[in-house]
């Protein structure tokens, strides 16, 4: 273990050293904002570059004066202090010029902001709901709905359960099990909301992020012009696994999008207790059922997972107030909940032998 860390350290340390000397550093590694793939993201990028140039020029001018003064007006060079302490002309000048610069900057910024708020005339409405710690996507017109959470490969690396290290996986922490799919050249309205705490949905290539707030819906829009896979992350601290709920957006042609919709609608619901547990429960209770006490109790050998079924059903359906344990009743179907609870009552040596059915769950609702 130590040797592996040392090796990683040495390898990691050599990369920046090489990079600093390599001329291609700028191109290969992101030093700047992405231009993105929408008209808005390009406007945002241009605004970013304009103001970056403006502050750079101001910086060079002001720092230049300071540095000149530091080198020339020093006592060791025999400089004698002037005694002026006021100049109305100078003070008016350096108040007026910044005001003019700010007004000039504010005009394009205002135009872009107004465009960003024009959410009407969308062809597709996508509702994004943040959960601790996954995203749910609802295609409101097409009745398609699914959860999207961190992919198994990243998950096992970050938990140290994998032989691989983060360096071995290009999309480490930036890959999901079910990417959200959108068509290009289509105005899409994107609604953000949340089920538990505040999250923020951010795909840099779209040019914005927006908070997902429980009990409220924010509306946004996008118009993607280039097909591709665009990655982002949750941008608002949302608890323990805030860093582990990425967003993957797959932008496809309209034809491919239609085909994808048909495929999604015909896909039989896959109900596998272990997989569902991995998606919905393992972030806290861990894939080995040991939890992370005291915040997240173990399920292996726990009084609830091995005790009366009614209590187990109750806590899963309704959550536990004052803790991170959510109510899963509104999130998942009877069949899915039955599979998860059956898995929990038989895995990790719990061996209760219980088989819970969808009817049991329905009765407990």
């Amino acid at each position: 273990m130590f040797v592996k860390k040392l090796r990683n350290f040495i390898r990691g340390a050599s990369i920046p050293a090489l990079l600093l000397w390599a001329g291609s550093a700028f191109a290969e590694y992101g030093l700047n904002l992405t231009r993105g793939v929408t008209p808005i993201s390009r406007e945002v990028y241009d605004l970013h570059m304009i103001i970056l140039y403006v502050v750079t020029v101001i910086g060079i001018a002001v720092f230049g004066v300071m540095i000149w003064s530091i080198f020339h007006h020093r006592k060791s060079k025999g400089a004698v202090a002037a005694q002026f302490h006021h100049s109305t002309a100078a003070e008016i000048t350096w108040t007026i010029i910044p005001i003019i610069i700010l007004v000039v900057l504010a005009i394009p910024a205002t135009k872009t902001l107004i465009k960003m708020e024009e959410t009407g005339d969308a062809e597709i409405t996508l509702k994004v709901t943040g959960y601790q710690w996954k995203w749910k996507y609802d295609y409101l017109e097409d009745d398609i709905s699914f959860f999207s959470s961190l992919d198994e490969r990243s998950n096992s690396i970050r938990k140290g359960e994998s032989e691989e290290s983060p360096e071995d996986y290009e999309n480490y922490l930036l890959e999901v099990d079910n990417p959200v799919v959108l068509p290009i050249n289509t105005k899409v309205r994107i609604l953000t909301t949340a089920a538990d705490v505040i999250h923020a949905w951010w795909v840099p290539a779209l040019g914005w992020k927006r908070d997902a707030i429980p009990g409220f819906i924010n509306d946004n829009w996008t118009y993607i012009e280039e097909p591709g896979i665009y990655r982002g992350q949750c941008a608002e601290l949302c608890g323990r696994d805030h860093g582990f709920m990425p967003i993957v957006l797959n932008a496809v042609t309209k034809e491919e999008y239609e085909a994808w919709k048909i495929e999604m609608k015909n896909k039989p619901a896959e109900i596998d207790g272990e997989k569902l547990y991995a998606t919905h429960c393992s972030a806290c209770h861990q894939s080995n059922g040991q939890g992370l006490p005291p915040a997240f109790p173990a399920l292996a050998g726990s009084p609830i997972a091995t005790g009366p079924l009614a209590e187990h059903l109750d806590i899963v359906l309704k959550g536990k107030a004052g803790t991170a344990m959510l109510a899963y009743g509104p999130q998942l179907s009877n069949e899915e909940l039955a599979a998860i609870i059956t898995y929990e009552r038989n895995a990790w040596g719990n061996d209760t032998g219980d088989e819970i059915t969808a009817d049991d769950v329905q009765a407990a609702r």
Partner: protein
Amino acid sequence: MSEAVSHEDHHDDHDHKPTGIKRWLFSTNHKDIGTMYLVFALIMFFVGGAMAMVIRAELFQPGLQYVDPQFFNSMTTVHALVMIFGALMPAGVGLANWMIPMMIGAPDMAMPRMNNMSFWILPFAATLLIATFFMEGGAPAGGWTMYPPLVLQTGDAFPFLIFAVHFLGISSIMGAINIIATVFNMRAPGMTFMKLPLFVWTWIITAFLLIASMPVLAGAVTMLLTDKFFGTAFFNAAGGGDPVLFQHVFWFFGHPEVYILVLPSFGIISQIIPTFARKPLFGYESMVYATASIAFLSFFVWAHHMFTVGMPLTGELFFMYATMSIAVPTGVKIFNWTATMWKGSMTFETPMLFAIGVLFMFSIGGFSGLMMGITPVDFQYHDTYFIVAHFHYVIVPGIIYGVIGGVYFWLPKWTGNMYDEKLGKLHFWISTISVNVLFFPQHFLGLAGMPRRIPDYNIQFAEWNMISSIGGFVFGLSQLILVWVVIKCVRGGEKATDQVWEGAQGLEWTLSSPPPFHSFTVPPQVTDASAHS
């Protein structure tokens, strides 16, 4: 003035101060209380710094190496709370305690007993906060901004967090009241408001900001408390409340808080730069008005901390324009300091180096601040490492450099001994190189898409994180030089003159070094404008 001072020296022998622990526990002396504030702030600076080291160690390379993500979140949360409420604010109050009576020609603060109480609340409040690490559910991990509903998931630590914030707020308000009472009532004859040293001016304005904004924070956290324990629903949409309401109330406190932290630092460098340029401060009046306008405007820009919550367009435009307008008075201050240096006769002792460090690096933080004032672009910058880089440039080489510069500037006055100039310069240069290695790459990380407050990241962010961490470790360690310089200076050294610095002007430099226990028992007569440098 010199008559008053020699008179003062005779009185030195008549001090009746208790000895041992009682001197400190029951102290009503502005210098002793100021010292306690500064020592407390220094200890908290290292406590908060140790947490920053944990953060940078975990982020040294991708993968989870040292801490659980929940503990990582506690580190970022408590690091911020300890640094803001435990280190920066007490350091500012400590310097005000020490210097304001000496600068305005008063014997002590106006309310010495309250002064004692406002200090002694702090160790209790800090203990409440730090004790949460040993509680069921761990220390607060919902961010120092305490946004609901996440903060309501805090375990047993929750009420301790709320009460710690209450106590810290009470302490600050009492300190602010004391400063206002002192400046308004205890100025020496002839010391009119427009003759006050700029450090005193910035502190009056800071004190008003404190009184106006701390109760708002207290109200916000009290509503959190009742939401959690008494069934209210201020911030719960299911009960008719609104989680975003908290953010509005919090940042109505939080933005003035930024200026509460930075204005005293502006005041300090407004004392240091004229001293070492041997030239009067340029545009004294416009400095006072610029400070007051920054403070006034700071109440109208709070929502720029939360542009992404989804405000109406008109709201976003208002806060964008208001935020941009703050650049004007801030620019005036920077230009005035530059004009003060211009055609001066400068020397570069350690305080001057730190003051110049503030000019350059606070400006960098100001530039990125202007960039994120542009709302549509802030939708990209928000909650990324670009923001982390921005506010750390403002706070570390902006505010902390101002405070450290002030400590070097006044240390010979306080102790009567010159500090070790070589070590001071070493401290400055190591800090300045490492602080830029630490924070500048974070601009790149943020622009490339790294969110803040994450314990692990994709390989594409690895290089700059490693460089940033190396800068962080060096910066953290180099602050031990400061401790060494201070200890060495307190223990002895070349004797300082009363004026200490060739270009120093103002009442505090007419007192002996170290000054008598009660600063001015007979008020000096201030006759000319040289009272402020």
